[in-house]
């Protein structure tokens, strides 16, 4: 019945008049995409590291991450395989918080994950309230199949940039293509400009 309630009244968006990025379709479920086996990372052994371009390392274990101020936020997800899922609710720590004590002049970041996945993006796309280390989804702990215990979430870019099972971020003066960016997928991946592949 949600479709009959006016948007202004309920605050909910109806599927009929939602504006999606070009080439995307709406899905209600949350497809699981993965390029390898799902790492089972226990929070007692979890660690997250930011490594600067000079080699300086900043570490957080699970307790340190959870001691930081967390945010609850709602955002839309756009996967390069063409599904979009709207109004997803998350809990996580803003990367602005994690980068507060990090001294860097690097322009680029490479996120890397338990299991070996990597993805690259400009550092500025991780800052300014646009990216989180997320550990809660839909009011629950983030499931391993969706990247738990914690994943990067950069929802303004295609979802492959939101590295599941994130383990660290390496800052670099030069850009380096990640797991998919090295084999045809767009280096930046803006869904609103439909940057799926190299030449897009």
């Amino acid at each position: 019945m949600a479709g009959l309630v006016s948007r202004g009244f309920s605050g909910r968006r109806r599927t009929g008049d939602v504006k999606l990025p070009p080439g995307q379709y709406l899905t209600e479920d949350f497809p699981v995409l993965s390029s390898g086996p799902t790492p089972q990372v226990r929070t007692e052994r979890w660690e997250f590291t930011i490594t600067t371009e000079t080699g300086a390392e900043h570490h957080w274990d699970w307790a340190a991450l959870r001691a930081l101020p967390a945010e609850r936020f709602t955002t839309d997800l756009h996967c390069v395989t063409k599904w979009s899922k709207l109004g997803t609710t998350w809990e996580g720590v803003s990367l602005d918080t994690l980068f507060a004590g990090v001294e860097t002049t690097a322009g680029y970041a490479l996120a890397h994950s338990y299991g070996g996945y990597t993805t690259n993006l400009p550092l500025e796309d991780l800052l300014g309230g646009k990216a989180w280390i997320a550990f809660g989804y839909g009011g629950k702990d983030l499931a391993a199949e969706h990247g738990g215990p914690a994943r990067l979430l950069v929802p303004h870019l295609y979802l492959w940039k939101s590295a599941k099972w994130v383990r660290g971020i390496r800052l670099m003066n030069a850009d380096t293509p990640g797991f998919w960016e090295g084999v045809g997928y767009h280096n930046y991946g803006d869904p609103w400009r439909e940057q799926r592949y190299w030449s897009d």
Partner: protein
Amino acid sequence: MSTNDDHHLDANAAGGALREIFSVDVTAAGTSCATCAHSFTFAEALLHAWAPGLVGRCPACGEVVFRLVRAPGRAWLDLRGTTCLDIRMPEGR
């Protein structure tokens, strides 16, 4: 006339050989993992297909041996995890 590049050919010269190679069934090729040196038949790679592309992993160590991305009118094949493909060629060429 004498430069360091004298021994280079234009890579178009490899075109015939490459077309011939990719016309055979690569899934039957012997494959050597760049990470652990394990040798296996290409088709034995552990395939993760529910992803933005196809990912093949070494059956011994689990590292990536190939990535294949298909787009309309285009394909990208990354073989950096494979040191060598041992390809059986049809006779008579």
